[in-house]
């Protein structure tokens, strides 16, 4: 019987990047080099490591379609493959290099809106919105319907433990039951007026703020998630919990997504990442480059192969 499983293309591929930044005010410049091919497959949790000033964030801005590569002629490959919403086994292949060359900014914005999520160092939740509204923002931007939004937000509130009443810890089984198919359920605690979910973000603790940021980053189920210094606002334990949740939600077999994490913490990177991209400053010039790409041990045997995952080239 012929197998119906399709091969999973790399979610993101980049080769030949030479991105130069110029600060006219300071008359300074900095260049990031990616000379080897970076290819990231579905469910990869990539750690971007390196000392300060080696270009990690700059590389993130290019990978995250936040900035156009400076020298498009030198860029060999920059591709993105995202799942087709209408087909179980189809993928959309986007030549990002061409999109930048043709200045297809609307396409770029759309790609970023639909397939990318960001949990940056400063977080930058929208201060005029509540926790719920911040998390729902990407869903609204992508045209989700209201019931689906409510359901997804509730799910994330629960998963990131953001559904408590302020001052209380409430375990909300109601929607769990709903998710599992039980017929009726009492009003979720997260809907109560004094629930954390209905609080404005300026009332959140540092850990809550970071968790909301992470929840927002993955709320619309993006293919690529960028996390920048997750431990900056959290202690190690809280960061560990948040990243575990993130990995569970983003890199499970049902999702065809990857996660980039910029960090200085080697231990954290080794704990969560299966791919390490190491950057280092270049000698004799203000530049940074990717010096090493290490794919760590294979996925744990208890993590089942997602239907879309196949070895490249098979």
């Amino acid at each position, binding site marked *: 019987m012929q*197998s119906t*499983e*399709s*091969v*999973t*293309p790399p979610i993101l591929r980049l080769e030949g990047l030479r991105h130069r*930044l110029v*600060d006219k005010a300071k008359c300074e410049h*900095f260049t990031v080099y990616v000379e080897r091919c970076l290819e990231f497959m579905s469910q990869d949790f990539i750690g971007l490591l390196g000392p*300060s*000033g*080696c*270009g*990690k*964030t*700059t590389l993130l*801005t290019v990978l*995250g379609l*936040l*900035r156009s590569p400076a020298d498009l002629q030198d860029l060999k490959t920059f591709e993105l*493959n*995202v799942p*087709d919403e209408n*087909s179980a*086994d*189809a*993928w*959309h*292949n*986007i030549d990002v290099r061409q999109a930048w060359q043709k200045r297809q*900014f*609307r*396409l770029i*914005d*759309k790609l*970023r*809106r*639909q397939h*990318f999520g*960001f949990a*940056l160092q*400063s977080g*930058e*939740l*929208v*201060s*005029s*919105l509540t926790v719920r*509204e911040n998390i729902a*923002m*990407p869903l*609204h*931007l*992508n*045209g989700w319907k209201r019931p689906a939004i409510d359901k997804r937000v509730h799910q994330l509130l629960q998963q990131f433990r953001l559904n408590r009443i302020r001052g209380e810890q409430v375990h909300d089984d109601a929607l769990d039951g709903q998710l599992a198919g039980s017929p009726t359920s009492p009003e979720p605690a997260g809907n109560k007026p004094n629930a954390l979910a209905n609080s*404005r973000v300026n009332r959140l603790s540092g850990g809550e703020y970071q968790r909301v940021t992470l929840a927002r980053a993955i709320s619309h189920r993006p293919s690529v998630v960028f996390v920048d210094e997750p431990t900056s606002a959290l202690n190690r334990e809280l960061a560990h919990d948040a990243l575990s949740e993130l990995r569970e939600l983003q890199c499970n077999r049902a999702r065809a997504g990857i996660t980039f994490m910029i960090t200085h913490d080697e231990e954290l990177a080794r704990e969560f990442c299966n791919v390490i991209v190491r950057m280092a400053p270049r000698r004799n010039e203000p530049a940074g480059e990717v010096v090493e790409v290490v794919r760590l041990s294979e996925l744990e045997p208890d993590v089942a192969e997602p239907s879309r995952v*196949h070895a490249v080239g*098979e």
Partner: protein
Amino acid sequence: MSPNLVAYTQSENDGAMKRLSLYSGLALKDVLRLWSATQIQIVIISGICLPILILLGLKNGHVADLREELATSPTGRQVLFWSAQGGDLLSDSVLENIKGSIENTDLIIPESQRLVFGIPKPSATAEQNLTGSNESSGQDESSGQGESSAQGEQNKVAITLYSTLPGDPLLGQFGIETIDAKTREMVLSRSVADSLSVKPGDSFEVEISRRLGSDQESHRLSFVLKGILPANEQGGGQGSGYAHLDVMQLLERYGTGSAVDEWALPAMQGRTAVDLYESMLLFCFRGPHSDLSKNDREFLKSRGLTVREVEDPNVRSLFGALNENAQNELVVYMLERIDREQEGQTPIRDSPQLIVRNTEAEDDLIVRWCPPVKRKINGQEHLLVGLTLPTKRETGGWLNTFLREDAKRFTYEESVSDPFALVFPHERPERGEGPFSLAISSQISVVLTTPDSGEQQQQDAAPSAAAAGPPDSLPVAIVPVNLLAYLHQLDAGLVQFDPAGKRFVEIPSELDYTKARLYTHTIDDVPQAVDWLASQEFAVLSESSRIAEIHEQDRSLQTLVFVVAFGVFAFGVVTVFSVLVDSTDRKKGTIGILRVMGISRIGVFTMVLFRAFVIGLLAAGLCVCVGYGLAAFLRADTSQLGLLAWKPVISVVLSPTDISLIALGALLCASLGAVWPALRASALDPFDAITEGQFG
């Protein structure tokens, strides 16, 4: 196996409209939830627009009221003009012509003034005291009244009376719109009213007086107080009053000594009309030296007199007064004016003495003559003949030698002392002694005096040819020639009969004024009135230069309002711009993450602009609400509220147009001020916006 790759397409309407509503919702939430920051911006924009709104309200209210008040003020609309330069005397017809020639003329009031005296009412206290003292002393009230009258006499209040007409703006500004002539209404200044102890509606006495030569007389009339002019106001000066023009005309007539029938006031004693004669009879002896010479005729012609010999035997004989010798020895000439002066009468101005002295004819004699007239005496038509012969002192008196013994005539002294005398040359005693009523006119009759009846019977006892008279002619009655002259003048409409004084007086001529005050509809009509009057050679006095100043100030004010509004608006845009730039800078991170999440540049632009629009809308609402409140406060009369008693009442009118303008201005101010910040926000590099330019 290779992956199943399909092309990635981007639909055109990729939920764009939905995202647009999302952007608007985000902007609205930003406005409402970040209220502490938003309210400051709303207050700033509202505060920028509010002065303009109030300024417009002041322009529509206070300034418009001032202008309206000025435009319709009596002083502003008044034009004083005189006939001094070369303008016509201001008779009724001339005034009518002026009013018809100048557009938008409300009223023309000829200026007339007269000094009268108000008689104060005795005070109630004074009356009580007088009555009490009279009772205790046993005096009757009349002596008490005499005392109070004497007091009133001493305290007579001088009133300078001016003419007015109903609708006089000068009085209208104090609520006095009408004034009646028949009831003799008068408006007085406060000081006069207080002195007279009268209030509106009260009657009070006014003494009027007139003087002719050494003769003086006074009368008292009752007037009704119509209104009081406030103190220290225009027209409310000391001792002044206003009466209807008709009343002033009657006072003027009274002052000339004429009778005022409307007030039952007789003409002044001695104010008798002058008797005028259109012809004279010149008697001279026949002969070369006695008759009129050629030179005499030339002289008479030079005096404007025609000379013709009288052929009528009645006239020659003075209706039987002269004997037959007079017919033979005397020549009788009729002297009359060559040129007719005017319709009605052409009197001879020269005196008989002047003519006689200058003729070469010896012993010529002139008798004033009027053609006989028909009048009824006791109902029977008679022919009145005027026979007054000069005295010896006047002309030598030689004509008396030619008089019949029974001739009935009057002497000069008799005529002057009593012109209303009568003798009958042909009457029979059966006619009776009288009284004889002469019908001067169809409405007026007067009883004539007659000489002693016994003398008349004796005279009538000897019938004569003269006494018989022509059998088919009217019966003749002889009256003094001056009575006949008056009757001629009466028929000519030059005199009227004064029954009270039993004399003929001149008919008062129509009063002509030399000065008048004209009121135009508004001050804008004054210049053209001034121009017209000046073109008619009237001297003119008006506020036209001041009015030109007001127009100039009005234009300046409009320009000022425009400049201030423009300046404030421009300043507002700059302020909003700087506030929103600052606000956008503060929201860089939020804008950055929204861009990172995929909101397009247009989306960011829309959000910033919409947010500013909402702020502008709220600012407009706040501005209008505060504006209404402030306008109401300024309009309110707080004079009774202690702490706010200082506040004047200022009219501020906010029209819907101005409110719409200001609301639009607030929206425009906010929107324009937000354009550059919105463009700047949309152009932010997403990552730079988050990291503020840091790279690593």
